[in-house]
């Protein structure tokens, strides 16, 4: 099936790669969630400032 099986007894020790993979998966997802939150806060602030400017003009 693949070359590892001809040279080894039992499964290969690849735990560190698995951990690295899941750090990437959850890390990127968390960063994206955080970016959504930050952008939402910034837009909220922009909205408040623009509404203030508009009310001053009126």
């Amino acid at each position: 099936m693949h070359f590892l099986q001809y040279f080894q007894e039992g499964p290969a020790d690849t735990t560190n790669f698995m951990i690295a993979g899941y750090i990437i998966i959850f890390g990127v997802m968390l960063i994206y969630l955080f970016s959504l939150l930050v952008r939402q806060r910034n837009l909220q602030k922009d909205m408040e400032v623009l509404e203030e400017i508009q009310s001053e003009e009126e």
Partner: protein
Amino acid sequence: MESKPRLLTVLDVVTVILLLVATYMVFFYAPQEAVMGDVQRVFYFHVAAGWVGMLGFIGAAVAGIIYLIRKDRKWDIIGLAAVEIGIVFIFINIVTGAIWARPIWNTWWTWDPRLTTATVMLLIYIAYLLLRQGIEDPDRRARFGAVYAIIGSLSVPLTYFSARLFRTIHPIVIAGGDPSVTGAFDMTPLMLQTFMFSLLTFTFVFIDLLWHRIRLGRQADEVEQLRLKTIQ
């Protein structure tokens, strides 16, 4: 900004629970693969991330078609949201693929047809975001986004079928493939259950994130309209 719908809060909770269960299944329910060892566990979320990415890009193309027919900017917001989520998950898919490849193929990267087409697909959609930013008129930007998303979506079937159409070392786990390919493996029933559950979970993740991103897009649209009004 409009208040958060109750259904979205329910969806948030359900998605988090599903993600926790799927993570438990990946680490404790699915058996260790006999040859590759623990790194094979990356497979469940690696494929699920690719699934979400492709859902995002196909979703953007559908939204693009509807936008061109109806000229309603709501569909542009949906398309943009879908592309952004697609990019995030295809990025996860490619990086986790490289991590899986290192101990199995003995290299982080190879210009295999599947890896190459996936990377080209990612770059096409990153360009979508960059090019959109250069267009100030919202209607022109939406029209451009719609056409680009429709044409760009051709890269999705090309990526999916690349491992079937071309000679490749990338294993085809779904619907067979060459069992002699390096990294190929037979799924036991427990592996298959974990895999299907991961796909379901990531579909929920996609819907949940899409909803949040659409709300953000609507808010951005409101701010843009207000800004244009203030300038005039």
